[in-house]
């Protein structure tokens, strides 16, 4: 039998159900593996007791024939989700020492579905970053290495870099992620796992530390498409506490999964063929097209003419919202307080925020503050929201011709830590393929397609119509079945 830690959600669920192993054995195996993987810096807090308690409940439930969809599955929780009694920092200094007295809706849903928590996962500070280099608690290291014999530490992607690294290194079978401009899909692509961001409003934002409210959406990250479908099903659902939550039933995505795309039309947006795209990515894209055709889909070229404006629009809207969302971190009610001698209230704010926010967070707060400041609102924010409307219209026009879109997930494979840190703009460009779907609130996922010449994973992105997570997952499964992606990083840590 394979190692317990090699198993995914479905396999653990079935094994526990069939009595092949106990949930406690599974939890203990992952707990031990987490404890031995400090070098990856994926976990900020380890919560073995939480995982074991859920495991014991699962074992008891099995005895009484009362198993739930994720009974006995220990998962990792991105440290952007508030967890009652467990420190939650958003990987920031300003939330140092903050222990929520409440549980986010998404995490509560997962616990209700029988899952347990192995710990809180590192991330880019306040989910702002594409490489997990902005965490106040150090970089997360990808378990992957280039096949050039060098030991360059690679980025696990961001912002859900702790999640991607931990799953890829088999520290947990699955983890939550959040996606504002690509923070689930890009890290999933970088480490060769699957990750789905559902339609905006499917997962409650209540209790998730906010980055950009109109874009933030929680999702699932796991080894394969089926596990993503199971986990997303457990996370999603209407929440009256979130005004933007969709009051719709959650379909049985996992139960309805099908790798057949007969009758489906897949669009290939021509504007995504950006200048300087590596040939390997181009090739993988072509391969993806062939796989989808093989699965029965018709493939057409479509146009999303405003694609090139998506990133600049995103880098107005997201920082603007962030500058306001992060105003609450002021040293008054929780978190860090920096009170220089003789400082007044406003000095305390400025000192606290200077000490508690990292450089990238400050940069974005500055941009957001600037674009909203007197006289600039129309030129920046309002214009960006208009462009956003045009981007959404582009997608609507595309849906007249196709059911799904296929694109690469990221313009490159994982880069080395430090490689892009000096140039914020170059880092932002990493989100070029993921941001448009975020702006339009569309469901999208990344599935691994293959390896590049350096032996690093590359991902393919599927974007669906609003609420069509099923179509996205089905296409993901079709690719997964044909790609046969089985590469995994060698354990060096």
């Amino acid at each position: 039998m394979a190692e317990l830690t090699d198993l995914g959600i479905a396999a653990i669920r079935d094994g526990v159900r069939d009595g092949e192993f106990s949930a406690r054995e599974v939890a203990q195996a992952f707990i031990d593996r987490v404890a031995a993987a400090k070098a990856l810096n994926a976990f900020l807090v380890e919560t073995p007791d939480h995982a074991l308690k859920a495991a014991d409940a699962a074992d008891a439930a099995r005895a009484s024939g009362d198993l739930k969809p994720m009974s006995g599955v220990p998962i990792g929780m991105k440290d952007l989700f508030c967890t009652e009694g467990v420190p939650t920092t958003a990987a920031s200094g300003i939330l140092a020492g903050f222990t929520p007295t409440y549980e986010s809706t998404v995490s509560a849903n997962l616990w209700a579905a029988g899952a347990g928590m192995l710990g809180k996962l590192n991330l880019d500070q306040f989910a702002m970053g594409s490489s997990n280099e902005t965490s106040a608690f150090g970089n997360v290291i990808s378990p992957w290495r280039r096949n050039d014999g060098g030991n360059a530490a690679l980025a696990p992607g961001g912002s859900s870099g702790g999640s991607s690294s931990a799953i890829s290194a088999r520290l947990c079978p699955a983890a939550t992620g959040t996606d504002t401009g690509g923070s689930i899909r890009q890290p999933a692509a970088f480490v060769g796992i699957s990750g789905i961001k559902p339609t905006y409003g499917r997962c409650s934002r209540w209790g998730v530390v906010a980055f950009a409210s109109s874009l933030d959406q929680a999702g699932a990250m796991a080894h394969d498409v089926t596990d993503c479908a199971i986990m997303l099903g457990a996370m999603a659902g209407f929440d009256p506490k979130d005004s933007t939550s969709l009051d719709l039933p959650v379909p049985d995505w996992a139960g309805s999964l099908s790798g057949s795309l007969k009758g489906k039309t897949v669009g290939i947006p021509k504007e995504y063929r950006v200048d300087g795209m590596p040939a390997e990515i181009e090739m993988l894209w072509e391969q993806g097209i062939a796989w989808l055709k093989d699965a029965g889909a018709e493939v057409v070229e479509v146009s999303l003419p405003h694609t090139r404006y998506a990133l600049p629009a995103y880098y107005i809207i997201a920082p603007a919202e962030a500058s306001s969302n992060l105003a609450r971190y002021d040293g008054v009610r929780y978190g860090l307080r920096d009170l220089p001698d003789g400082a007044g209230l406003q000095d305390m704010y400025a000192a606290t925020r200077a000490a508690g926010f990292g450089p990238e967070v400050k940069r974005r707060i500055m941009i957001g503050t600037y674009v909203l400041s007197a006289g600039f609102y129309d030129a920046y924010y309002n214009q960006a929201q208009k462009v956003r409307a045009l981007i959404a219209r582009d997608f609507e026009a595309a849906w007249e011709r196709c059911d799904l879109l296929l694109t690469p997930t990221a313009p490159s494979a994982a880069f080395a830590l430090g490689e892009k840190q000096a140039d914020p703009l170059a880092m932002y460009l990493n989100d070029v393929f993921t941001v448009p779907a975020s702006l339009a609130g569309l469901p999208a996922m990344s599935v691994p397609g293959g390896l590049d010449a350096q032996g690093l994973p590359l991902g393919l992105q599927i974007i669906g119509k609003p609420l069509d997570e099923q179509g996205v997952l089905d296409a993901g499964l079709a690719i997964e079945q044909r790609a046969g992606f089985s590469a995994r990083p060698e354990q060096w840590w």
Partner: protein
Amino acid sequence: MTESTYRIQGATGEWEVVIGLEVHAQVTSQAKLFSGAATAFGAEPNTQVSLIDAAMPGMLPVPNKECIRQAVRTGMAIEAQINKWSRFDRKNYFYADLPQGYQISQLYHPLVGEGAIEVTLDEKDPDSPTKRIGIERIHVEQDAGKLMHDQHPTRSYVDLNRSGVALMEIVSRPDMRSPAEAGAYVKKLRSILRYVGSCDGNMEEGSMRADVNVSVRKPGEPFGTRTETKNVNSVRFVMAVVEIEARRQVDVIEDGGKVVQETRLYDPDRNETRSMRSKEDAHDYRYFPDPDLLPLELDDAFLEECRASLPELPDAKRKRYEGELGLTAYAAAVLTAEAETARWYEALLDACGDAGMAKAASNWLISDLFGALNRLGKDIDDSPVSPRQGAELLKLVADGTLSGSLAKQVFEIMLETGDDPAKIVEEKGLKQTSDTGAIEEVIAKVLADNADKVEQYKGGKEALFGFFVGQTMKAMAGKANPQVVNELLRKALS
């Protein structure tokens, strides 16, 4: 419309004051605008606070329907345009009483648009001029928490009980030209809000407060630079702020200075305004639509319910009291100025069961009841005498059981004991008598005892008639029906 002639005498001539008011009215609701915490006044610090009100990470707002409904009803009461599509915006600034670092308000698309109210400068003067004051908008927003400065020498304390309570901000046009107009506007607005039930109008508890925008100009010239004096919490203070701020501005300009557009604070103890240092750099609020909330869209059924639930408003009621009930303009104005008074009056009239008693009821309420309540320092809602008891008393007068003076005696006892008038009349034997035999007997005695005066009366000194009435009433301890006494006396003296 009547032009005000209020002028400030300056060294360089006469100045006119221009006033606009932003009234913040706390919406009457059980729970807060965006959270389920209670709104009641006077609770222990930070007990009426949800994690949302404390702006904990990841907390989200969900709007309270009743707050929206009350703002819509208020808009309807001032005949304003109701916007079926509105939005919440964030007003960003840092202050310790503002946990989110922004206030959820409405800038770009308010719930209520253009409206107006009619104010009468002196409600009690039937000839007083009336003026229409434009209302630019009403929007809904969150209140801030409270800072306490005097509990500790070096620290301020933050209480978030008020944080997130729903406010309506009612923004007037700069249509007022005198302290009296500003005062009348606030009073009228307060009256309307209390009729509608959308705000309790309690200025002492801060349920209603005004930001007073004042500028001065030479009559006929364009508007001058205005200052905004924040959180003024009584009608008297609003009038005082207009007066002293206008005076101050005239002095500044005439001394060769310039009025600075700024936020000021009123100090009632010194009766002066001063610049608010803490708000100095708070002018760039970086408003943008709140991304946690979708646009607020109201359907026709909702608006219909709001309209159907509106009570008769003070202006309409006043006209009806004058027209249908035949009350004087003064009485109608007094009885309708406050919703409670009108309610009490209508309950009284109902209990009388006879619209013909409208005037008698109005007179009794305005002179006797108000006089007594004034003396006792009580509001009409705490009146020791109920409308039913008042009506009983009025009926005893109408059917001749009590004379006017007996009724006053009975009323005094009612105030003290809370007893019904019939019981008092019975127990104290205060019933007036119309027994002609008994009265004739007394008259005969009075005339016999005053034979000299009878002579004088018959000799032409008719003024003595009142003396005989008085003597008769005195002999009967005030209980004789004065009308019967008059008739019998005339007969006896003829």
